[in-house]
């Protein structure tokens, strides 16, 4: 691996100072399951690793009094999906966190790292979008918030400017009678990169007969994970029926602009975007109804 420096700031202020001092060659180190490999293979130039795992805000996760959840950018997936409250209140996060790599990866990898790596096929990002996640970013000019759907800008690229750091992601409290789910299509059972993935979050009326609102996101079908507003709009205010769900699935399929590569053809991916959207909406409905 290229020679590098290692710094482990103990606070956000120290982290921002370290990033400012070392400039564009500084990379934030969370679980390291992407960045260490990229540095070793020369796919990213890294002069300084700024390890944020000594910073409480970046490694902890906690529920606010309003029921919101804030997840530190470096909190490992395994700790998140092992938490009983997260399992109960945010099962879609468990869906994603428990299939990013194997257990060895989940011990270290984090949602924040998965987001900052900004892969079009990232297995947490559609879920983060569907749940209405907001990125809490800190940098030399202070703090700013960015909705997750606006974070990724191209494969491997995102809105973080030089010197900025993703601290955590905040999810609003789930609405009454709501549910969310994530699903990935791969040709084997475990340990593969998504051909397509999708997430849905739905809020139902009290009697469960109609959709109050919904958010749908699909991945591996465009240069960035896609928030498909049209698919959520196709559900909002409509009865919970196969026809409504089919319309949302069609909207997700329409929004997909996939490429053909070794993992699948563009046509297969477009089809899968619809199929998976239908699946995740149905799972989200079942969860909303407490099934």
């Amino acid at each position: 691996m290229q020679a590098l420096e290692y710094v482990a700031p103990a606070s956000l202020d120290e982290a921002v100072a370290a990033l400012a001092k070392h400039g564009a060659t500084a990379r934030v180190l969370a679980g390291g399951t992407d960045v260490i490999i990229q540095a070793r293979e020369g796919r990213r130039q890294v002069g300084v690793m700024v390890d944020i795992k000594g910073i409480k805000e970046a490694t902890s996760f906690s529920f606010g009094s309003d029921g919101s959840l804030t997840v530190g950018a470096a909190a490992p997936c395994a700790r998140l999906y092992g938490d009983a409250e997260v399992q109960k209140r945010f099962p879609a996060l468990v869906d994603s966190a428990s299939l990013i790599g194997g257990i060895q990866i989940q011990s270290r990898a984090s949602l924040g790292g998965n987001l900052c790596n900004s892969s079009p096929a990232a297995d947490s990002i559609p879920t983060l979008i569907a749940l209405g996640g907001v990125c809490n970013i800190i940098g030399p000019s202070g703090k700013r918030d960015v909705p997750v759907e606006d974070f990724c800008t191209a494969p491997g690229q995102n809105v973080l400017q030089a010197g900025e750091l993703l601290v955590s992601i905040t999810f609003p409290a789930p609405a009454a009678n709501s549910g969310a789910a994530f699903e990935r299509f791969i040709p084997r059972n475990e340990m593969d990169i998504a051909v397509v993935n999708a997430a849905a979050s739905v809020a139902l009326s009290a009697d469960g007969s109609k959709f109050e609102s919904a958010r749908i996101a699909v991945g591996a079908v465009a240069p960035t994970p896609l928030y498909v507003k049209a698919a959520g709009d196709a559900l909002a205010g409509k009865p919970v029926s196969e026809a409504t769900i089919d319309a949302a699935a069609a909207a997700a399929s329409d929004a997909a602009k996939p490429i053909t590569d070794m993992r699948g053809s563009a046509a297969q991916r477009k089809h899968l975007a619809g199929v998976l959207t239908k699946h995740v909406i149905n799972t989200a409905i079942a969860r909303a109804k407490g099934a």
Partner: protein
Amino acid sequence: MTGRTYVSARINGEQRDFLVEPRQSLLETLRDELGMTGAKEGCNNGNCGACNVIVNGSLVNACCVLGVECNGAEIVTIEGVADGETLHPLQTSFLENAALQCGICTPGFIVAAKALLDKEPDADEARIRHWLAGNLCRCTGYDKIVRAVLDAADDMRRAPAKA
């Protein structure tokens, strides 16, 4: 500090103080600095599990961890799995079940299986297969490995003191 950095960690119950370059992975640290060559380099990119070690109770790929990150850590490697000359039930079971051929993946499988059975002594076949999905074996076809872990779990439940 691109130079060598002082790190102090407990490895297999023994306090070890050593110097590493920040660019060295934990795997390189173990193998090249500490002479512990039990953990293997397979893919060196987080896919194969041959370098599995347990850091602070969590199973990790040592190739995806920097040595400098391990200051103050508690690390268990394959070298710490046997009790002196007495093999761990998993090691015995791998031998009895012929759960290896070339053996490169074996340390990783045993450390990974130990991490599972330490937490979940009643793990069933589905759970074992799911847990071991991050460990690749190109020789055995996995069945003998899974059977070895099931047998070891059975032995450990019957004689927990030996585990």
